[in-house]
């Protein structure tokens, strides 16, 4: 499988919504 690693995640806020069955990314969510 392709694997989205933590170097690429470093610039994003990553949201795991297990109950909603979705993963989210917010490009400026960490600044």
């Amino acid at each position, binding site marked *: *499988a*392709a*694997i*989205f*690693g*933590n*170097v*690429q*995640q*470093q*610039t*994003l*806020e*990553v*949201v*795991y*919504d*297990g*109950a*909603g*069955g*979705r*993963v*989210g*990314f*917010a*490009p*400026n*969510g*960490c600044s």
Partner: protein
Amino acid sequence: AHEEKERREIDSHTIQLSSLFPSSPSSCVLSSRASSTKSSLHVTHRHGTCSRLSSSKATSPDHTEILRLDQARVNSIHSKLSKKLTDRVRQSQSTDLPAKDGSTFGTGNYVVTVGLGSPKHDLSLIFDTGSDLTWTQCQPCVRTCYSQKEPIFNPSSSSSYYNVSCSSAACSSLSTATGHAGSCSASNCVYGIQYGDQSFSVGFLAKEKFTLTSSDVFDGVYFGCGENNQGLFTGVAGLLGLGRDKLSFPSQTASTYNKIFSYCLPSSASSTGHLTFGSAGISRSVKFTPISTITEGTSFYGLDIVGITVDGQKLSIPPTVFSTPGALIDSGTVITRLPPKAYAALRSAFKAKMSKYPSTAAVSILDTCFDLSKFKTVTIPAVAFTFSGGAVVELGSKGILYPFKMSQVCLAFAGNSDDNN
């Protein structure tokens, strides 16, 4: 004109090269989100100045070692996904666990501090969306314990600690959470989890009080109390499992947080990020994509990548290049791995936009590197991922380059060895 300018801006990043190699200040910059949001923990870089585990100065990590361990972790994830379900779990009565199971621990760079037991005992745990079982080392370390910075948890000094019976449902669910069925020792449930690089933890499945913050306290959380632990964890007390299995921490606290958590990884070794449980404070600009379930690895958070753009240009990669092997997101894997054809397309598009910078030798798994020692700034093409459901995610410049030194700054992606993994 404005739109064109804005589009152009998104199409490239111009970076001060000095910003790629910041001299790490002695002070630590704390995440305001972690400090001010309910159910939020500071995330520190295991080797950074903010870490409780490192000495006052950040230790500069050995990048080659980081990438070697990263590849070991990726290999073990791939071997897990390619295993046939039939030959999965064997009842292991002994502590000698088969090396091929489990996931490699990897570099385990991101750490949170949680309180365990009554009275509370603070422990630094690595958080891992690629595994499920939370565990820590426990006194009296019947077999062996590796050295850790904080005192090793002593269950006999906690009034809220309970061993779990091996006839319990939680003991039976160990097989999906760790790849090994629970075994029995004097009717207590014994767990074992193996990380492919000869790291492992074996001990009692137990229940204990977990304190995240003063207002977020959970009684009776299942976790592994490790009496026999070995491997690359030096310094940290164990692991916080954030996978999708029913024994993971998000699953066990679902009634409070509805299995929602979010994180920002620290942007440098001298700052903290946050790991927040629940939906408090999530950015409004978040773009969602559905989680896809990977049959051979139901604990992983599967994603569907549908495309990559470089400099605003969509790469011509047939969708089946991504859909055949599938994809997952993992907080414990450092470098993004792409199917070979997708990586080849990304590499050639990136190199074409970087033609003014001299190429230089590859480093470990990164084969597209540049010598920037004669430049003050570098302009790199923007890279964005498109996921199913239409989420287009622009990477920041730190998500595109992996800087070893000024004369060796590399594209921070690697290709898988074959199309199916």
